[in-house]
């Protein structure tokens, strides 16, 4: 019966030390009972062949040992929902922190000659390994909690009441006032950038009187982006005018609004990679009777670089927020609310 001894030993290797001997004894007793039963049925004395049959029926030693482990889960079904909830939060926070850090380093250090796109692509492996690390840490923490804290779970919805339900989604109302504002500001921007670009700049007031003015819109920015900005504003005007006559935002309106958002994100992206928005422009200075020499040094040394970096940061933040907003709007548009609940 050496086969039985070998089997019992093999099972023992997978059992916790404290219970090993007792469980081994019990398994041996089970195997012998099975053997006795089978040999009586067959009318023969137990032999190695019958032993092999019985052991085959029992299954692999590791499987038999595993059935004695009370908790075969790394993260059990009770704590799994909490694990998933917290994991999602952690991964979002890690991604957000990563993007923020990258935006900051772009602003503070510049993109080291490469474009913003190259910088983003180059840092994808870092983000990926950061996310994998965060995931691994979460698994380890939960696996430890699973084994040390009985009935561990985090219930975020413990204090839930029906009052917490989100409002039923009404059809999106078109607000005429919003559109009128949009139209007025768009026309103002169109006129400003096309007719009076030399009036975009820094004013200095003293006791309520204008004491000095320096035009700050860079010539390169204007030649690079004026056409595309005009196209965007024209499309925006068209959209706002159309919406003035619509009581609700219909599906095509939602898609048009999404298209404009994509357009905006593209422009923001181009802003980040294109010439800086602010700079001294001799032609504009001349229209105010100034030359480069008349501009105080503080503008070239401090004001313009700081403002440009501030704008860059603002563009990055707007881009990130915009992408998140776009994704959520996209999901809502593709999967419209099937049932509009009555209030």
């Amino acid at each position, binding site marked *: 019966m050496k086969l039985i001894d070998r089997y019992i030993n093999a099972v023992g290797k997978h059992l916790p030390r404290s219970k090993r001997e007792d*469980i081994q*004894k*019990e*398994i041996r*007793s*089970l195997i*012998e*009972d*099975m053997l006795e*039963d089978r040999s009586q049925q067959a009318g023969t004395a137990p032999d190695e062949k019958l032993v092999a049959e019985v052991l085959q029926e*029992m*299954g692999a030693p590791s*499987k*038999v040992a595993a*059935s*004695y482990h*009370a908790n075969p889960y790394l993260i059990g079904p009770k704590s799994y929902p909490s694990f998933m909830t917290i994991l999602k939060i952690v991964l979002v926070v890690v991604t957000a922190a990563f993007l923020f850090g990258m935006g900051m380093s772009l602003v503070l250090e510049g993109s080291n000659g490469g474009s913003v796109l190259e910088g983003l692509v180059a840092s994808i492996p870092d983000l990926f390994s950061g996310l994998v690390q965060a995931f691994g840490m979460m698994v380890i923490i939960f696996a430890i909690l699973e084994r040390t804290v009985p009935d561990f779970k985090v219930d975020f919805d413990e204090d839930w009441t029906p009052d917490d339900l989100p409002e039923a989604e009404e059809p999106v109302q078109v607000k005429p006032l919003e559109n009128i504002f949009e139209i007025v500001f768009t026309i103002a921007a169109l006129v400003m950038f096309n007719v009076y670009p030399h009036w975009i700049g820094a004013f200095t007031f003293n006791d309520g009187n204008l004491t000095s003015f320096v035009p700050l819109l860079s010539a390169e920015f204007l030649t690079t982006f004026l056409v595309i900005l005009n196209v965007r504003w024209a499309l925006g005007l068209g959209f706002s005018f159309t919406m003035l006559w619509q009581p609700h935002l219909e599906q095509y309106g939602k898609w048009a609004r999404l298209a404009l958002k994509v357009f905006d994100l593209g422009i923001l992206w181009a802003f980040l990679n294109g010439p800086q928005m602010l700079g001294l422009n001799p032609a504009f200075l001349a229209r105010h009777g100034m030359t480069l020499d008349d501009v105080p040094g503080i503008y070239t040394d401090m004001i313009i670089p700081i403002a440009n970096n501030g704008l860059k940061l603002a563009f990055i933040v707007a881009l990130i927020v915009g992408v998140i907003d776009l994704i959520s709007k996209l999901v809502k548009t593709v999967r419209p609310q099937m049932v509009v609940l009555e209030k």
Partner: protein
Amino acid sequence: MEMIESLTLELRRGAIVLAVLSQLHEEQYGYSLMKRLEEGGFPVDQGTLYPLLRRLEENGLLDSEWNVEGSRPRRYYQLNQTGQDLLDALQGEWEALNEVMEKLLS
């Protein structure tokens, strides 16, 4: 088919503890209990039954002792008072559930 199998398994799994406790008014060793359940129409494989008996004992529902009087040592399990109380409660639940299910299914 696979779904029927897995759902049937799920149903049976819920009843195993009740079935096992119901047969332990008098002491039984693992294999005799296994046979008894099989003959009664509720087969449970050894990989499920033996660890379950240990867990029920750890939870204080069964008492056990090694009996070396027979041909070989065997561990005998039997309901204790806590186990008996639990069995009574579970049996009540089972009967009520059965009644409800019969009504629902008729």
